[in-house]
């Protein structure tokens, strides 16, 4: 292997550090980069550095952003009375892709998990309570509803319960996202637990 270029070897090693990239994929990616036009490679390299240099966390919702407050928090077309609480920034991206949600967000930065040493103080929970108690500067409306959109697993459900108890004293509606079958999915291929919960949570048609 030492007959090939040192730089190519280094690139392969860098790619293999990424999640779900094995040695073979890293080699393929490096070979692809070799064939890319120089300006495209520069663009890519700059984008990589930019995320470290320019990206900050929004002081209101803790989502990743270039400008503080983020474009969602500062938009006047968003319904600031509706706050969707999620675990990670990637969850914001997922919900934004629906193009249906008109409210704003609050990113916790994880879930409560004693086994991993994560407690409420390690998450942006205090700032969430503060947002509901008194709207931050730049936030116009008082919060009317909080949607708890943590993952439907043991930790997500526990964090949702913890937040719902914490928000009880405030004049705000607290809701949890529904669980059930994926749209367009095949009943036959759904896992048993999802299917069982979907049957449990069935709704009348009249």
């Amino acid at each position, binding site marked *: 292997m030492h007959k090939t270029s040192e730089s190519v070897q280094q690139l392969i090693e860098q790619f293999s550090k990424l999640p779900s990239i094995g040695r073979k994929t890293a080699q393929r990616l490096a070979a692809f980069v070799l064939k890319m036009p120089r300006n495209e490679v520069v663009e890519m390299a700059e984008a990589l550095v930019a995320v470290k240099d320019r990206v900050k966390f929004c002081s209101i919702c803790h989502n990743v952003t270039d400008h503080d407050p983020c474009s969602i928090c500062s938009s006047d077309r968003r319904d600031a009375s509706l706050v969707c609480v999620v675990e990670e920034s990637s969850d914001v991206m997922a919900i934004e892709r629906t193009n249906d949600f008109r409210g704003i967000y609050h990113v916790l930065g994880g879930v*409560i*998990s*004693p*086994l991993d*040493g994560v*407690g*409420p*103080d390690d998450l942006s929970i205090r700032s969430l309570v503060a947002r509901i108690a008194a709207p931050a500067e730049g936030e116009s409306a008082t919060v009317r509803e909080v949607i708890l959109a943590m993952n439907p697993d*043991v*930790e997500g*459900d*526990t*964090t949702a*319960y*913890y937040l719902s*108890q*914490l928000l009880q004293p405030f004049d705000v509606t607290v809701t949890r996202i529904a669980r059930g079958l994926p749209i367009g999915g095949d009943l036959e291929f759904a*896992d*048993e*637990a999802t299917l*069982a919960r979907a049957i449990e949570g069935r709704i009348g048609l009249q």
Partner: protein
Amino acid sequence: MYISDLTLSAFRAHDDFKISFGERINLITGPNGIGKTNLLEAIHYLCLTKSFVSARDATAIREGSDEFVIRGRFVDGGTQSRSVSLQYSKATGKTLQVNKATVERVTGHVGLLPVVVFSPDDYGITAGGPEERRRFLDNMLCQASKTYLADLQNFRHALKQRNSLLVQATSHTATFRSQLDAWSSEVVRHGARVINRRRTDISLINSYLHDSLEQLGLANEVPEMRYRSVPVGDVDRGTSSGGRDLSLEEIEERYFEALVEAGSNDMARRRTSVGPHRDELELFVNGRPLRNYASQGQHRTFAMALKLAKYHYLYKLCETKPILLLDDAFDHLDPERIAGYIHLIQDKLECQAFITTANPGVIESIVQWGDPNRHFNLSVMIGALEKE
């Protein structure tokens, strides 16, 4: 359902081994250490993706290898066949394939190939502590119901988190208390479902236990399993609920209250003290607790009856005949009893059974050998392999 072929590579005593089974009784004999139990263990691996001998998969890899592979062909209803392969490697863990397709969620496989193990350790189910009886009950419920399996896994996970919080607590602040509350609610959400399923299925298991004792020629012994869960009380006798059945919501409520009540005790001992993980399953015969009065022989008979009840229960709920794995299960019994069991398997259950024993005399003499029954002498088979 039965298994027709089994191939092992680097599994325990077997380097490279292939065997075709009969549809009914398969007697496996040979000297100690030749790998009789290993064959049963391999079949168990294919059915439930785990061993009944050891909890650590790595110990099943043959010395000098990095992985073992078990392959089997299961036939159902005479025509449908399913090839199952389980590979365990030190580096990548377990991979299960059914009909050459990798199964991502192993839990989905559990219960498709129901299996019941009979071993001398079964003695512990009736004579040992409550943990053995809970394991017995959980094993059969998990094979019968995937929702029970999911609920039990979630319950155990939430319990682990709650206990971890209790261990970490340095002071009992308001934040800690509301966190504990949140974990209690999660433990209850899954735990109540576990309790509910155990409660509802116990009567079905009881009726099969009754049938099983009758099949063993002990019709005048009236058995009863009583399920006692601290959060809901002696619900089987209806004492705490006034003979009324409890709904899942009521169980949830009671369990949560019980956790609140045990709160200071839990905080002091840094462990969750109430719930399905502490439930008791008591065995009574003619109204008397079996644990206190039964002789060794009676314990063995009742353990056998419990396993037979498990067979009937799984047959009913999985809608396919479970495979029986009898690992040295007859070794402490007199010839008359052994003959009784063999006749029961042969004429009443009519299922596939694997029997290992170091003293095959009685069984050899009463079973008609040749399909569907086969007799394997492992030392002869392995000797022939080595000569090749």
